[in-house]
C-alpha cells in the first residue's frame, strides 16, 4: 500500500495485525467457553431433590444433537475393520459385519440427531458420507443403513392387542400390590420413600453428590456425581448433567479411576424442546433397498395367563438356565458367559476373521487372552468362557479360577 522501503521498525509494525489476529482468535476460542461456564449458578439441591426433580420431568418433545466420545484406550481398529468388511460385503457372513458395527460403535466418536415428539422418535447417526437411522412410531420401527442400503422393519404382529395386554398386566400389578399390602399389614411406600431407600442402599457402595453447575448444550444444568466406594472397580466417577429447568438428562460420562478425562461420554451439544416437524419422522424404504421384515412376538392375554399358571405351579422350570453367571455385586461385579453363549455371535466364514481380530486387540495372559481398556476388562479363557467387568484383570482371573 505504501512505502515498502521503510525502516525495519515500520516493517515490524506492518506485521502486527498478522500476528495479533491469530492470538486474538486463539484467546477467544479458549476464554469465551470458560466464562460461559463460570456464570452458571442454579438454586442448590440435595442429591435426593435432584433425583426427584429429574424423575418428575414431563418433557415429551425435543430435538437435539448428541455427541458420543470414547477414550477407552483400545487400539485403532479401522485397519482391521477394513479387512473384516471386505469379505462380509460378499454376502457370506453377516456376523463379521455385526462385529464390525459393534466395534465401531464402541471405539469411534459419533454425532447423532435425536427427534422426539409425543408418539414418534427418530435417531439419526451422522456418519461421514453415510447415515444410520432409527425411525420409531406406534406402528413399528424402521432401521435404515445408507451405506448398506438396507432397511429393517420391526413390527408387532398384526393381531397383537397391546391395550388388552396392558390392562391385564395392570390388573395383575394391582392384585399383587393388594396381596403384598395385606401381607405387610401396611400401605406400600410412596415413590419418594422408595427413592430414599434406593439412595440409602446406594450410599453403602456409592457416594452420591451434586457437582458444580455448568452449561450443557446452552442450558444451565445440574451435575449429579456418583463415585463408587468399592476399591476393586475401575470406574472412578459417573457424572450426569440434568437440565436445571425441566429435569431432562443432558449428558452422561464415565471416568476411569485416576483418569482426568472421561473414558466414555454422551452429551447433547444442542437441544430444543419444541416439537419437531412431522416430516422428520416419515420413512418409506426407497427403491433398491434390501428390506427385512422382523416381527416381534408378543404374547396374547391368554398366553400370559397360561404362563402365570405355569409359574405358580412351578411347571416352567424346564427352561434352560441362562448361560450368564454374575460373580460379586455392585460396581465390581464380574459377568461370566458360558462357552455356548460366548461363541454364539461369530459363526461360519467370519469366525476365523473374528478370532484373528480378537488376537490383534487382546494380549495373552495366564489362562487365556485379555482385552484391556481403561474402564472394562474382558478375559477370554482358553476353555471358551468369557469374563467381563469393570474390574482389574487380576479380579477377572480370580473369578475364572473359582471353578
Amino acid at each position, binding site marked *: 500500500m*505504501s512505502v515498502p522501503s521503510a525502516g525495519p521498525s515500520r516493517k515490524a509494525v506492518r506485521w502486527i495485525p498478522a500476528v495479533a*489476529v491469530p492470538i486474538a482468535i486463539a484467546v477467544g476460542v479458549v476464554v469465551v467457553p470458560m466464562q460461559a461456564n463460570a456464570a452458571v449458578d442454579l438454586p442448590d439441591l440435595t442429591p435426593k431433590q435432584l433425583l426427584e426433580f429429574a424423575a418428575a420431568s414431563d418433557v415429551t418433545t425435543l430435538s437435539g*444433537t448428541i455427541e458420543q466420545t470414547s477414550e477407552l484406550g483400545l487400539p485403532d481398529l479401522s485397519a482391521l475393520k477394513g479387512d473384516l468388511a471386505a469379505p462380509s460385503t460378499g454376502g457370506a457372513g453377516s456376523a463379521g459385519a455385526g462385529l464390525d458395527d459393534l466395534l465401531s460403535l464402541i471405539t469411534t466418536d459419533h454425532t447423532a440427531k435425536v427427534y422426539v415428539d409425543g408418539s414418534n422418535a427418530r435417531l439419526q447417526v451422522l456418519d461421514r458420507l453415510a447415515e444410520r437411522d432409527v425411525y420409531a412410531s406406534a406402528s413399528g420401527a424402521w432401521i435404515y443403513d445408507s*451405506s448398506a442400503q438396507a432397511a429393517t422393519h420391526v413390527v408387532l404382529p398384526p393381531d397383537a392387542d397391546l391395550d388388552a395386554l396392558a390392562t391385564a398386566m395392570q390388573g395383575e400389578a394391582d392384585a399383587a400390590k393388594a396381596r403384598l399390602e395385606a401381607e405387610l399389614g401396611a400401605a406400600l411406600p410412596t415413590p419418594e420413600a422408595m427413592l430414599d431407600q434406593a439412595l440409602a442402599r446406594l450410599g453403602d457402595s456409592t457416594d452420591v453428590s451434586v457437582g458444580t453447575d455448568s452449561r450443557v448444550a446452552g442450558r444451565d444444568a445440574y451435575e449429579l456425581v456418583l463415585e463408587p466406594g468399592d476399591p476393586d472397580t475401575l470406574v472412578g466417577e459417573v457424572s450426569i448433567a440434568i437440565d436445571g429447568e425441566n429435569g431432562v438428562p443432558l449428558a452422561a460420562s464415565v471416568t476411569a479411576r485416576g483418569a482426568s478425562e472421561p473414558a466414555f461420554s454422551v452429551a447433547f451439544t444442542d437441544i430444543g424442546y419444541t416439537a419437531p416437524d412431522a416430516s422428520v419422522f416419515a*420413512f418409506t424404504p426407497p*427403491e*433398491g433397498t434390501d428390506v427385512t421384515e422382523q416381527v416381534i412376538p408378543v404374547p396374547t392375554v391368554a398366553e400370559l395367563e397360561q404362563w402365570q399358571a405355569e409359574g405358580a405351579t412351578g411347571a416352567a422350570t424346564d427352561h434352560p438356565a441362562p448361560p450368564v453367571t454374575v460373580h460379586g455385586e455392585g460396581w465390581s461385579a464380574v459377568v461370566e458367559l458360558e462357552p455356548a453363549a460366548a461363541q454364539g455371535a461369530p459363526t461360519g466364514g467370519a469366525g476365523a476373521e473374528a478370532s484373528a481380530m480378537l488376537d490383534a486387540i487382546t494380549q495373552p495372559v495366564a489362562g487365556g487372552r485379555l482385552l484391556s481398556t481403561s474402564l472394562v476388562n474382558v478375559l477370554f479363557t482358553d476353555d471358551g468362557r468369557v469374563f467381563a467387568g469393570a474390574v482389574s484383570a487380576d479380579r477377572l482371573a480370580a473369578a475364572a479360577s473359582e471353578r
Partner: protein
Amino acid sequence: MSSSEGERGPEGLETSSSATRPAVSSATRSADGPGPQAARPSKLGGILSLLASELRTLFRRRRTWAMLGALALIPILIAVAIRIAGDSPSGRGPAFLDRITQNGLFVGVTAIIVAIPLFLPLTIGVVAGDSIAGEASHGTLRYLLIAPAGRIRLLVVKYLAAAAFCAAATLTVVVVGTLIGWALFPIGPVTLLSGTEVSVGEGLLRFLMIAAYVTVSLLGLSAIGLFLSTLTTVPVGSMAATAIVAVVAQILGALPQLEWLHPWLFTRYWLDFADLLREPPVWDSFADNAVLQAGYIVVFGLLAAARFVTKDVLS
C-alpha cells in the same frame, strides 16, 4: 529484503525504486479520497475493473482450461468405467459409487469425493500459488503496481480470482458429472442418506449446494496459497508448497494421536458436505466449515498482506 537491495546491483536497485514509487503515490491518493483520474471513480470500482481484467486473464489461460478439463475427466472416467464394467458391489470404492447405476445423478457427488483429497487442492495450489509469484517471475508484478492500484488491492483481487477458480473447478466436477450421469444412466428421484426420496429438481439443488460447500472448503487453502505466493518469486515453489500443505493437513487429520489439532485443520470438514444430503439437511458442518475457512482467510490474508506490503518488489 531491504538490506539486500545494495547487493542486487544497479539494475535491481533501479527497478526496485521505480516499481515502488508509483505504488506510494497511488496509496496516498486513494487515502485522500477519489483520485483525479476519471477512469477510477471509486475504490470499489477500481477493484471491480481490476478483478474483471484479472478474471479475463485467468480464464483466457490455456493452463486454466487444461486444469478444468482434467477435473471434468474425473466424472467422465467414473461414469464410463461403470457403464462398461457394470455395477460395483455395495460398500466397495468411494461412497455413492454403488448408487450410480440406479441413479446417474450421483456421478457428480462421487466425482467430488474422488477429487477433494488431491485433484482439487492441486489445481487450487496452481492458481493460488501462482497468483503473486507468477507475476513476479514474469516480471509483470511491478507493472501491476505501477498502475494505480495499491498492493492490498492487488492482493484482494488476486484472492478473489483464486476464489472464482475454486467455484469454477467445483462446478465443473458437479455439472459435468450430472450431465454425463444423465446421459449414460437412468435418473430419477434422489435417495438421500436418510432413506427419504426427493424430486430430481431438489436433488439437483442439493448438488449445487454441495458445490457451494466444497467451494467454501477450498477458500482457506486459497488464502494459504496466496500467502505462500508472496514469499517467493518462483511460482512452482509456492504451487507445490500449497498442494503439499493440503496433503499434509489431511495426513495430520488422519492421525488419532493428533486429535487436539484436528479442529484447527482447514481440511477438517472437507468430506462433511454429505450433511446436505440428509433429511432434514444438517447445516452445522456448513456453518462450522465457513467459520473455520473465514479464520484461515483472515489469518493468512493478513500474513500475506504484511508480507506483501513490506516486500521489495524487484521484478
